[in-house]
Each structure stands twice: as structure tokens, then as C-alpha cells.
């Protein structure tokens, strides 16, 4: 069966034109065909034969501008772990970012300066497990990513043709006009379908979508019918505003057509282990839900951000008294369906916490496990900078590139026994579409030993990609000298 595909691709590539020369590529810049850019998808002409009965009729109005601002905020959360969700702040930031991104200078310095300013403003908004902040270089990278999205700077994306002698200026401008209109329609589609990721709806749910034909100066009014495995929704768009009215409200009237289609309950994926030990009672929780939801912890709503894929992330901080607590996290979707998970948090001031590199982990003949830790210190902020200078790792008067420093100035090691119930969490790359980028995966001692011996085996053996590398940098939580929790430190 697989060979059939091979034959198919061979035929498909058989008459592939020669690849473009370097000169061709370097001078083409953006030259997509206007036809390509203007078309989203024109489905079959027939009306669907069966549409479930109407259940709910709602009229709503959403701003295309909201999409622009939320898009930037999502990148900021997903790439850097900073929850800056103030629309006014993003409006201001986008203005500055777009000035730099589309300005005459292609130097990276102004963007780096902006990144520093924004990190300073968002100092208290980190949702990283250790509360750290990203480096300016990382943040600048995310700002460039925001700029690269045509929706971020809709007034600015048109390229200057100055100095581009070999470019067909008329074709370029026609393509950009088409792109501009495409942005309008993409926004309209996003709103009508109430989804951030139209591609996913089409590809994974085999949706039927018929939408605006924008060949004319004024977008025509059409119906959008989305037929997915999860829900039916019919949306009726008002006229798409003219270009100068880009930020005007788009009127979208849609009806929920829930009918015979079953709405799946939310699926919650915890960002860490289901049992957490804490010496101080300060606990960071995080998780991921596969659809838009409201999340409550012990009945109180917590902040939820929405990914471009439509999934929801919930970072939360708890402060608990000593004792054993059962924390219930509940996610409820628009259809009223909910799911819950429980986390056990053991708060004990008598627990010890050590930091270091696990250099060895081995199983004794009686089946118990022991580990060897190369003791170290995790330092942040000014303390980190001073320590790095003291250790000769950083020249006097210099700044650290990242806001942390691991001091490991001697070869002192410690040996610990591991409890049979020891919880080990490692940093892993998130594999789904969209999502938080990095999550925590729970493993047992045997799996950790395997990873230390062959770190590349994680994908094959465990089904996920380990972010770390031996020796893992960890926080060890000890109860009466025995390791009960191993948490890998996130290192950007």
C-alpha cells in the first residue's frame, strides 16, 4: 500500500521544473498569485441535505481588531510564558513593534530594546513554573514572529518597491491587495466560525465551508455552514467593512445547530504530576484543555488563555496550609459539559529541597533505586550576575545573557534513596497543534535511567520528546532523607 504512495509522488515530481536560481528567489520577494491569495475554499455547490434543527439563536458582534490583539497576546504567552492580556497595552505595543518591523532599518537592536521594555513591564506576569522571565533575545524573537503575521500590522505590510528593480511592481501590488483582502476575510471567517484555527476545522473535521467571494470591491454576503464532528454552527456575515474601516465591528449572526450532534466533554491534560509535594505551600498548577472552556479550581474561576487552535491553557498559583489537600480542577464548555481532575498536594514544612545535576541513577539488587546528585545552586536576578562574576564565568560589569546562573563550583555529590512512589517530572516538547510549547511529563525511575543512558530514545519509548539532556538539572524534594519528588528545572 505504501509503495502506491511512492509511485504517486514519483509521478507527481517527474516533471518538476528546475528549481529557481538564487537570483530568481532573491528578487521575487512576495509574489503570490492574486488568485491563490484570494481564495479560501469554495466547496461543493449543493446545499447539505441534512441539517439538524435549530436550538439556539444568538446575535453577536465581534471586533476584527480583537483578533489582531489576541493573536499577539497568544504568541507572548505561548512562546515566553508571559500573560499580558491587556488589549490597550497590545495596541500600543503593536504600534511600536510594527514601526520597527516595517521600518527602514533591519537592525535587530531596536526590537531587542522593545523586548527589554516589555519584559520589564511584564515582570509580574510570568506563568513559568519557576516564575522566571525570558531573556530579551527570546522575547525579541517572539516580537519578530508577531510582526511576521500579516494580521499584526495590517496597515504596514505592504512592501516598498524602492530598490527592487527586477520586481514586477504591478504584480507585487496586485498580490498585496489580494493579501489585504484575504486578511479581512480571514478575520470574518474566524469570527463566524468562532474558531481560531480554520485549517484545523477543515482538515480534521472535514468541514464544509462556503464563504465570501471577495473578487469584487465589496465582499458579498454569504452563509457559512460548518459541519464538524463536534458541533454544527451556521453563521451569517454582515458585509465585510471596507479597508479603511478595518477596525469597525463585524456583525455576525449565528445559530447553534446542536441537534443530533454530540458535544464532547472537555479533556483536561495536566501540566505536571497528579501528586505534588511542597515545602512552602506555594504551588504552581498548569494544564491544557482541548476546547474553549471555563476552568475552576475549588469552585473559583481561574484565568484561561485560548490557543490559536481553540484549546485552553490554565496557569494557576495556589497557596496552601500544611497538610494533605485534594485540589479539584473542573473545565466546563459552552454546552455545559464538564470534566474534572483531582490533584493531591502534600504541604510539609519539614520536607527538604535540594538542587543539582543527577549524574547517576541505578537500581540495587533488592529492587530499590538510588541516585547521585552533583550539588549546585540555582540563582536568579542580581544574585546570579554577582555569582557568575565571582566564579570567573562573567567579566566584571557585564550582564548575563539569561536571567539565571547555575553555580556548581565543586565536585561535591550526594547520594539519595528513591521512594517507590517518587514522582519524577521532566520537561518535554508539546506535540499537539498549538499548545503551550513545553509541558511536563511524568516518568518512573526506570524510564529516567533509560533516558540518561540514551536521551534520544524518549520519542520511541515514551512517545514524547525530552527537552533536557543528561545530566538532568533537578529539584529534589526529600522526606526524611528519601527522595519523594524529582522535578526537572525548566532551562530556556
Amino acid at each position: 500500500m505504501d509503495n502506491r504512495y511512492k509511485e504517486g509522488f514519483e509521478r507527481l515530481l517527474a516533471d518538476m521544473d528546475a528549481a529557481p536560481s538564487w537570483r530568481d528567489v532573491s528578487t521575487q520577494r512576495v509574489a503570490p498569485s492574486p488568485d491563490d491569495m484570494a481564495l479560501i475554499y469554495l466547496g461543493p455547490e449543493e446545499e447539505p441535505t441534512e441539517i439538524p434543527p435549530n436550538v439556539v439563536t444568538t446575535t453577536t458582534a465581534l471586533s476584527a481588531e480583537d483578533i489582531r490583539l489576541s493573536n499577539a497576546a497568544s504568541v507572548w504567552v505561548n512562546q515566553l510564558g508571559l500573560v499580558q492580556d491587556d488589549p490597550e497595552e497590545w495596541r500600543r505595543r503593536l504600534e511600536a513593534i510594527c514601526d520597527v518591523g516595517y521600518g527602514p532599518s533591519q537592525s535587530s537592536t531596536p526590537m531587542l530594546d522593545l523586548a527589554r521594555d516589555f519584559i520589564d513591564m511584564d515582570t509580574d506576569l510570568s506563568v513559568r513554573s519557576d516564575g522566571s522571565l525570558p531573556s530579551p533575545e527570546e522575547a525579541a524573537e517572539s516580537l519578530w514572529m508577531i510582526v511576521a503575521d500579516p494580521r499584526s500590522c495590517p496597515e504596514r505590510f505592504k512592501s516598498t518597491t524602492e530598490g527592487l528593480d527586477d520586481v514586477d511592481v504591478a504584480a507585487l501590488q496586485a498580490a498585496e491587495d489580494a493579501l489585504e483582502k484575504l486578511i479581512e476575510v480571514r478575520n470574518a471567517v474566524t469570527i463566524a466560525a468562532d474558531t481560531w484555527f480554520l485549517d484545523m476545522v477543515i482538515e480534521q473535521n472535514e468541514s464544509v465551508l462556503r464563504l465570501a467571494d471577495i473578487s469584487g470591491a465589496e465582499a458579498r454576503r454569504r452563509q457559512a455552514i460548518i459541519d464538524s464532528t463536534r458541533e454544527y454552527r451556521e453563521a451569517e456575515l454582515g458585509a465585510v467593512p471596507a479597508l479603511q474601516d478595518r477596525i469597525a465591528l463585524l456583525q455576525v449572526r449565528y445559530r447553534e445547530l446542536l441537534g443530533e450532534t454530540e458535544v464532547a466533554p472537555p479533556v483536561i491534560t495536566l501540566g505536571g504530576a497528579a501528586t505534588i509535594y511542597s515545602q512552602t505551600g506555594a504551588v504552581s498548577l498548569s494544564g491544557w484543555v482541548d476546547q474553549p472552556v471555563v476552568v475552576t479550581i475549588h469552585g473559583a474561576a481561574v484565568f484561561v488563555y485560548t490557543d490559536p487552535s481553540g484549546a485552553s491553557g490554565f496557569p494557576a498559583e495556589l497557596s496552601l496550609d500544611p497538610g494533605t489537600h485534594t485540589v479539584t480542577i473542573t473545565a466546563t464548555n459552552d454546552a455545559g459539559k464538564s470534566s474534572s481532575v483531582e490533584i493531591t498536594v502534600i504541604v510539609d514544612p519539614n520536607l527538604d529541597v535540594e538542587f543539582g545535576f543527577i549524574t547517576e541513577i541505578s537500581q540495587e539488587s533488592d529492587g530499590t533505586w538510588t541516585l547521585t546528585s552533583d550539588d549546585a545552586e540555582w540563582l536568579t536576578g542580581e544574585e546570579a550576575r554577582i555569582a557568575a562574576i565571582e566564579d570567573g564565568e562573567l567579566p566584571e560589569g557585564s550582564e548575563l545573557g539569561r536571567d539565571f546562573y547555575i553555580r556548581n563550583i565543586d565536585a561535591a555529590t550526594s547520594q539519595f534513596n528513591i521512594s517507590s512512589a517518587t514522582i519524577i517530572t521532566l520537561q518535554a516538547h508539546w506535540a499537539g497543534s498549538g499548545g503551550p510549547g513545553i509541558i511536563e511529563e511524568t516518568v518512573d525511575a526506570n524510564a529516567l535511567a533509560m533516558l540518561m543512558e540514551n536521551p534520544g530514545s524518549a520519542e520511541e519509548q515514551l512517545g514524547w520528546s525530552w527537552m533536557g539532556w543528561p545530566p538532568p538539572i533537578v529539584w529534589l524534594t526529600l522526606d526524611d532523607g528519601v527522595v519523594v519528588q524529582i522535578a526537572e528545572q525548566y532551562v530556556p
Partner: protein
Amino acid sequence: MSESDIYETVRLDLMRYATALVGRNTAEDAVSTVVTRVLARPGGLGGLRDPKQYLMRSILNEVRTRRRQTTRQPVVRVGILDGAVQPVEDHVIDVIERLPSQQRAAAFLVFYEEYTPSEAAKLMGCRPGTVRRYLHLARTKLREELDG
């Protein structure tokens, strides 16, 4: 290595990949759009740790984002509508053209370029299990189309 040299090293791979995803008529456009976007940024191609991997991921994202006409338009050949017998190869190409871009990328990289699922996952920016799922879906589609 200059940016021009880097591009020369990877361009045929990129063109083949893009052609498999969107067809030869728009492959060049997809490649040039992605490459010029990288060139416009500080560091350009020379600033990438693994230019081939980065550019292949970018091409897949570009294809998915722009929803090329060649992948979005219903591909219906007259011969099939008429119930006429088609050469097998044409059926296979029909199936390929109807695959969603991620399934198409996975099928191309594993079945044609003979990467392992793990290697394909790195190029596509997802995990091997996801690649296997795409391959399963692609196989199912082919089976349905050819045997069903």
C-alpha cells in the same frame, strides 16, 4: 558558508518537498516566499542552526496558512465522475491531491523520501506518534479510494 551557498545546498530538497505539498505550479512560490521571509530578518539563512529543517517546517506552515488553491479546490476528475476506468497512477495522484497538507507531508517524507517517522517528525515539528497517525490516515484514505 554564504547565504547563497546555504540555499544552493537545500533548494532541491525544498523544491521537491513543496512540489509534493502544493504541486509544481505553486511550489516555487511557496519556497521563495519562505526563503525571502527568512532573508529579510536579521541573521538571515546564516542565523539558522539547521536551515533545512527550519525551512521545511516553514514551508509546511506556509502551505497550511495560505490554503493554496491547489489543495483547497475539490479535485474531481471527469473520468472518475463518469465512472470510467482510470490508470491506477492517476487514482493515486488524486488521493495525494486530496490529502490534508500534514498527511501529505508525512506520506511524502516517509513513503517517498524514506525518512523514518522520527526523522519526519523533526522536519514537520511534531512528534513521531503524530506522524504515524498521519500515515495511518493517509493509508486509510488510499485504501478507501482504491478498494472502496
